[in-house]
């Protein structure tokens, strides 16, 4: 039975689209599992999702409950990461902060990836002046310093987590547009696209059903690799007071609060930083692994 399933997955001549896709996923999954760093990265990302989902049950205390009687306590058996200047348990705040981080990266991905995908696909598919205008715009955005641009946008929009998400999304979409355009250019003149067109399919149908799906794998790789940068930018905005506002337990904002105590009560600023590093590294490892597993061009 087990061998039968594997044969079905690895067959050279899949009988249906579903079978071909399952086979591809199986192959990529195997390649991914053979890469220890990628597995580690995947586990970290999974951990982030689980911690975010079960934060109320995992956190020993409330992330906003103040107790001035026990402020700035060092890490101990009772408070694994110590307490902050308002007597809040830092571990609990880091756990709740996972939700904010996950929400930010998910929102940025949900906004920026489709925008970039559509701009790039339209640009590559139609070519001509549409391509020149759209890619000119993309290149202008691409040649700007991303962090500074996000800072300026966040400053103009006003502080807040939603505005931080918008500011970061504005700076991330152009890279996706470039990738989608490159992919589209390689597919555009393929015979199956010509055949679909002869069957009377509209441009919208060809782009939506035939081109966009083929861009997804390179998109997933790029988005995963970008996650670390997005997390760092979001934390940076939080650190400067432009992102999540107090008392939200956003990691960057927590480091900013701990800045005043860094020389004596080092744990207040340090602990949220470790969370940022672990999660960013996780996305980096996973992204590298996905690229090796999914991207046929990167294979040696």
């Amino acid at each position: 039975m087990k061998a039968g399933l594997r044969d079905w997955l690895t067959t050279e001549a899949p009988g249906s689209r579903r079978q071909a896709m399952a086979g591809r996923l199986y192959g990529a999954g195997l390649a991914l599992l053979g890469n220890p760093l990628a597995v580690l990265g995947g586990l970290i990302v999974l951990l982030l999702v689980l911690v975010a989902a079960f934060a109320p049950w995992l956190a020993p205390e409330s992330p906003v409950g103040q107790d001035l009687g026990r402020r700035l306590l060092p890490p101990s058996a009772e408070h694994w990461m110590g307490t902050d200047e308002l007597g809040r348990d830092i571990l609990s705040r880091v756990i709740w902060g996972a939700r904010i981080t996950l929400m930010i990266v998910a929102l940025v991905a949900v906004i920026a990836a489709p925008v970039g995908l559509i701009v790039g696909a339209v640009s590559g598919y139609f070519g001509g002046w549409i391509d020149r205008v759209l890619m000119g715009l993309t290149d202008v955005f691409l040649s700007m310093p991303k962090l500074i641009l996000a800072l300026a946008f966040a400053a103009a929009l006003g502080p807040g987590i939603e505005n931080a998400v918008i500011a970061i999304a504005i700076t991330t979409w152009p890279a996706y547009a470039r990738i989608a355009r490159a992919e589209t250019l390689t597919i555009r003149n393929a015979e199956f696209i010509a055949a679909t067109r002869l069957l009377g399919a509209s441009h919208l149908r060809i782009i939506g059903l035939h081109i966009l799906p083929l861009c997804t794998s390179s998109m997933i790789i790029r988005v995963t690799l970008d996650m670390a940068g997005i997390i760092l930018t979001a934390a940076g905005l939080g650190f400067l007071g432009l992102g999540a506002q107090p008392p939200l337990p956003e990691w960057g904002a927590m480091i900013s609060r701990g800045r005043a105590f860094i020389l004596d009560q080092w744990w207040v600023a340090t602990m949220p930083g470790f969370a940022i590093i672990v999660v960013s590294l996780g996305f980096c490892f996973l992204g590298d692994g996905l690229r090796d597993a999914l991207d046929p061009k990167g294979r040696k």
Partner: protein
Amino acid sequence: MAASFSPAPFRSRAALVQAAKGVAEFVAITAVTFLGLLALTFFIGRVVPIDPVLAVVGDRATPEQYEAARVAMGLDRPLLVQFASYVWDVLRGDLGMSVSTNKPVAEDLLRVFPATLEMATIGIVIGVALGVPMGVIAAARQGIWVDQTIRVLALTGYSVPAFWLGLVGLAVFYAGLGWVSGPGRMGIFYDGIVAPWSGLLLLDAALAGEWEVFRSAVSHIVLPAAILGFFALAYIARMTRSFMLDQLSQEFVTTARVKGVPEWRVIWVHAFRPIRVQLITVIGLSYAGLLEGSVMIETVFSWPGIGNYLTTALFNADMNAVLGATLVIGAVFIGINRISDVLYRVLDPRSRS
């Protein structure tokens, strides 16, 4: 006679036309990119805020000040006219007044920029000096522990928040070990001893022969510059490794090995030489990236550069200063990228026709 002395690349008329086309294309792309940057800062300053006047004068302004600013900013005119006059102002070097320093933003930026330049330059020197050899060694020892260590170190550079590393560095090397000085550019006793000439404190102090000041400045700059250098190193080492791996899998490398060329020569001469041009682009990109990354580092180290100026302006809601600093950082960023692009084309024989 004169014709035989014409520079080598322009031997034929066609080559000259080709070169002229290249220059024209370069100028056009650069101009469009700068115009795009201006359009973005204009958009951020005048269109995004709900009330751009309030963003400039701040909420403590009287109604008269508000009205004066509104007229001065020409907000009653069509958007395109406003943009044209904005571009004209910037070209003349007028970036508006800063409400927090009460000086023209352009003057402020000119004053603070050398501090950033000094730190980023030392950072990139550290990044290149360590990053390139590390990348080459990692590629030469692909797969074993040296390679794995360097790879993970490089990936750490993509995952550590710069401001966090700055704080931890201060806690460890300043408060803990006492190896370096704390925030700021020099000890408070030395302030004002050296008259700024280039604005680069190390250079000015050395030229004035004030070695006490020089020592103080070195012990202040070493930590923030080293942290910037670490981020440059991460990127440079990663790119160097991947370029080297490409070269080492080429056939000419195998040929050299078969001929019995010593391994160090294969790596440092045969494989390394061809990637030097690619590295210029990488180093340029990473230098530009450091100017940007210094925003966070300067804020943590109270370093009186453009990044600190930008974040201070953010806290004071001083929008003219924010946009001016954004514009200057963006322009330098684009400028460095364009220059490294040109260098690449000039130096790489494969990109010539």
